[in-house]
């Protein structure tokens, strides 16, 4: 699957920044770390673009993203994660739900985020790639350099663990 190479680094940022941010936020659970990761990924992309060989640009980008996240995890000292309420920008576009519903949704979102942070990282990563980013099993397998069967197993086990934590 050859994809056209984005012309500029800014194109990559514009097209993929939000995807990377959502992936990072759901993995790390806080906006500051997620923002740091986005910048790190884009820095690596900028360094790597010159040597990029045509192929799956998205696959290349997600491998960089994942590697940056894992490098970051290894580098950091333990520090508490404190997920903030999810941004309400999108919700404000829709006036139907009342304040109570919005608050209930935010609380549920926090519960789900906490449950995500509580499961082993390889399962969390697979679930987030599948259910937040919307990647196929094949795309996830390419990004994490694992067989599709492994991806399937990680998603399955991740969901089972999430289910246990959410009930």
């Amino acid at each position, binding site marked *: 699957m050859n994809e056209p190479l984005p012309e500029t680094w800014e194109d990559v940022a514009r097209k993929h920044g*939000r995807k990377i*941010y959502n992936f990072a936020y759901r993995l790390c659970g806080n906006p500051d770390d997620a923002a740091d990761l986005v910048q790190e990924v884009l820095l*690596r992309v900028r360094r790597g673009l010159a040597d990029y060989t045509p192929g799956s640009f998205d696959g290349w980008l997600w491998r960089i993203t994942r590697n940056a996240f894992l490098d970051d995890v290894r580098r950091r000292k333990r520090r508490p994660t404190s997920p903030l309420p999810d941004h309400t920008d*999108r919700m404000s576009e829709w006036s139907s739900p009342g304040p109570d519903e919005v608050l209930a949704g935010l609380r549920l979102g926090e519960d789900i985020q906490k449950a995500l942070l509580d499961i082993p990282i390889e399962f969390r990563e697979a679930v987030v790639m599948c259910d937040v980013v*919307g990647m*196929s099993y094949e795309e996830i397998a390419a990004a994490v350099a694992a067989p599709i069967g492994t991806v*399937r197993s990680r998603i399955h086990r991740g969901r089972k663990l999430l289910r246990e934590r959410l009930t």
Partner: protein
Amino acid sequence: MNHLGDLLSAHLDGELASHERSRVAEHLQTCDRCRRELEELASARAAVRSLPLLELPVALSTAIGARPDPIPLRRRPVAWVGAAAAAAFAVFVSAAALTAPEPREISPPQLNAVYGAVSSNEGAFTVVKVAGATAAAGGAR
């Protein structure tokens, strides 16, 4: 009887191979245990999918020279509907949803000391070699 295990998640995601689909469908017709597990998996999947998509923080968007991406990451009609769906988390999805995998609409190619639980299987987390991104492993920030 061999139960379905991770075939159930693949079933939910529409990721079964053709030869697996009929086996899964047939098994689900007769196995209460797998049907129950499918319901539980579906509820967990729905919960994660109900999380709202976040906009790039303005400061970050400015720093990286990117405007907020106008294209939704994934097919979600309305964020608050997703939240409402999550509110009904305890209510399991319908039998129809369980037996008919949701087709992927748009699929844009799209440790725990620090962030959560650390897997015992650390070997699974070797950094992937990325052609053209030699700086990746260096991690200079």
